[in-house]
């Protein structure tokens, strides 16, 4: 421990160190995003060690999955990353479809893209708003929720639920869109687009925000890969990986005809297909600011994808197709599939013995790996940086504990 602190140049007060104090941050704490418990070893304001304790939200979802048929388990995936339930549904549905070698109709494929990208916007809005809250600014949180509310209204109209949708299911979707939905969706995108500039003004380019996030919690690409980080956390470190482009065929086929550029900094700049603020001089690749910024860029990227999906979906003739029966038998064997969820790569693994009920179900959570790196990032930071760093990882406890 002492050796470790000695090596770390960020700990400037090493020679005047006094007694250490153990502080429990959570599980009841305003900025731990649910029921995360962080044990901080502090010396005054300087944090020398952060140890995350998890399991407060464990609901044995995987075990339950081994007692239900594939389609019956969909509602349990909703409750993993409850901020992006559509993406969770899709991940499981695709894993089962991969095992069954099932192909959904083209219309259902485009509708799935439309829905999950819309949910990605909603999830990133929460991530962004809550991050502002972590840094002590309240209003962007409500501005983000105001827009998310409109997405939830759209979802409610499509599937009847506002948070746990179970809309995307094995073999397609539970229902087609109601008439007039696409017009409303387009109107929302139209109205939402200029608001992103407001978020940039309030957060991304705000001097205090930059001071609080730039060069804080810097994660090298090697470290990110070592800990299995994924999603915006990985891309914030400059690693060019996105499952929508680099994933397995059954998943990337969904995005085949779509034009999008992965939001990652390459050769010192982000994709230049949109107008966005310049990277501040203080920001270092892999710090909190970059993780946040990648999310903001992905909101724009998802809006683009939603627009493309609307065009393709409305161009599709023919029926949407019915989802599989609840008791449809799966072939014996196993399948693992990772999809690009808003928080990162979410993987589902299932082993089947030939019945409709999987013999084994496992989920690989992105937030779990993303949180694991927190203790590396928080070493030697100040107490105020702990919410800033953990918030920039954008974790959801429902997904970590399952």
């Amino acid at each position: 421990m002492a050796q470790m602190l000695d090596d770390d140049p960020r700990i400037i007060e090493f020679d005047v160190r006094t007694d250490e104090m153990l502080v429990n941050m959570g599980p009841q704490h305003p900025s731990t995003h649910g029921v995360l418990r962080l044990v901080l070893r502090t010396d005054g304001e300087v944090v020398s060690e952060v140890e995350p304790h998890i399991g407060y939200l464990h609901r044995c979802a995987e075990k339950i999955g081994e007692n239900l048929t594939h389609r019956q388990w969909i509602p349990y995936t909703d409750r993993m990353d409850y901020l992006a339930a559509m993406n969770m549904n899709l991940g499981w549905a695709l894993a089962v479809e991969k095992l069954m070698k099932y192909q959904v109709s083209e219309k259902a494929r485009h509708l799935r893209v439309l829905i999950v990208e819309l949910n990605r916007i909603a999830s990133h809005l929460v991530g962004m708003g809550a991050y502002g809250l972590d840094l002590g600014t309240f209003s962007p949180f409500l501005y983000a929720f105001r827009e998310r509310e409109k997405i939830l209204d759209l979802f409610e109209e499509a599937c009847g639920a506002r948070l746990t949708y179970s809309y995307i299911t094995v073999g397609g979707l539970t229902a087609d869109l109601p008439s007039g939905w696409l017009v409303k969706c387009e109107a929302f995108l139209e109205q939402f687009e200029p608001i992103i500039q407001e978020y940039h003004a309030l957060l991304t380019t705000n001097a205090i925000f930059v001071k609080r996030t730039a060069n804080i919690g810097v994660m090298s690409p090697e470290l990110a890969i070592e800990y299995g980080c994924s999603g915006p956390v990985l891309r914030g470190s400059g690693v060019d990986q996105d499952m929508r482009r680099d994933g397995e065929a059954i998943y990337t086929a969904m995005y085949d005809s779509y034009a999008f550029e992965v939001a990652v900094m390459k050769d010192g700049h982000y994709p230049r297909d949109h107008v966005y603020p310049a990277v501040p001089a203080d920001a270092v690749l892999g710090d909190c600011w970059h993780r946040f910024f990648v999310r903001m860029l992905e909101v724009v990227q998802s809006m683009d994808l939603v627009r493309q999906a609307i065009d393709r979906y409305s161009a599709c003739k023919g029926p949407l197709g019915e989802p599989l029966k609840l008791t449809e038998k799966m072939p014996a064997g196993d399948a693992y599939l990772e999809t690009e969820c808003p928080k990162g790569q979410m993987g589902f693994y299932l082993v089947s013995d030939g019945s409709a009920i999987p013999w084994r179900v496992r989920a690989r959570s992105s937030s779990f790996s993303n949180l694991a790196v927190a203790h590396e990032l928080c070493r030697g930071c100040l107490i105020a940086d702990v919410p800033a760093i953990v918030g920039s990882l954008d974790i959801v406890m429902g997904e970590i504990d399952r």
Partner: protein
Amino acid sequence: MAEFLINTVRLPAWLAWSVTAGVAAALILNVIAGGALVFIWAERKIAGRIQDRLGPTRTGGKFGWLQSLADGLKLLAKEDLMPDGADGMLFRLAPYVSFCASFCAFIALPFAFDFIGQRMNVGVFFVIAVLGIEVFGVILAGYASASKWSLFGAMREAAQVVSYEVPLGMCVVVPVMLAGSMDLVTIAEKQAGWLTNWYLFHDPFTFVIFWVYVTCAVASVNRAPFDLAEAESELVAGFHTEYSGLRWSYFFMAEYGSMFLVSALAALLFLGGWNGPVPVASLLGLSEGTGDTASYFVRLLGMANLLGKASLGVLIMMWIRWTLPRLRIDQVMMTCLKYCTPLAAAMFLGAMLWQIALPGGLVPGLRRPAGEIREGWLPGPGGAFKVRSADVGKVVQVSP
């Protein structure tokens, strides 16, 4: 009032003065407490409007105007909790220290000419000093709560407020130097007349130092972006984590009281006090020092002026709070030690040299001493409140 009691009611002097003091104290206490309730309500409404929501709407009929009072009643009814390991006496004492310090400072705060609890020749000094005691309540609360988060809050408060009092003191000294008095009434009186007489526009240095004062004032009353002592996303609720019910509400009232106090102080020191941008009263030939009914209304107008300016200051603080993220403790200290303190010192020096080099200002005609405008009723040294009867009702011509 005391004179009235002694001369007309024929009370003994000690009783008359005690009654007067009691009435004045009750007035100040209730007006400020009522003001705090209004500001708490206003903050909720403003926060609501800033955040695209309504804020309180139902309590008290329209606009939820009784919301603060209803909240107060709720707090009264709450269980009186104290953590097991807490230092009982200090834990109970702390809210009152903060509350008393914040409210005591109002004694020396003039609301208009002659509308003042106790006029002091060291008014500025008294207000700043008493306001400084507020931090003791916070430190006591953090220390006595037996909670690590509270302790962090208290340590931050101690570091922050004590540091910020240095540049704050320097900012306050500049108007004192210009007026040649520490008496808040005199300082405000010297700024009578047109807008250009305000110390904010006295010279470039005072203009800059006003903004330094604003920064330091926000920091010293613990408002965002300097609200580190209670930083809710980091320290749960900082020093008042373990407080609930009425004790918590005392901290809350103290916070709003202090906010109003530093805003009123800014108005008195830099923004002409109770003198409006246009000297309406003296243009109409009225004076506030004469003691007749007209002068009473002039003073009421002055009070409205001061309250308006101070409320504007409070509103700006609210606006800032709901817009900006919070700074980190090292950044807060850096703002103080690296920017505010040197800047305040340099501006102090600059204002002093300006005073020597250009005592009449850049355009001498623009800044006319208050005495010229109001024809000499301004109390001179030692002659406070004395008014020459010849000046009563005299119409004064003012060239713009």
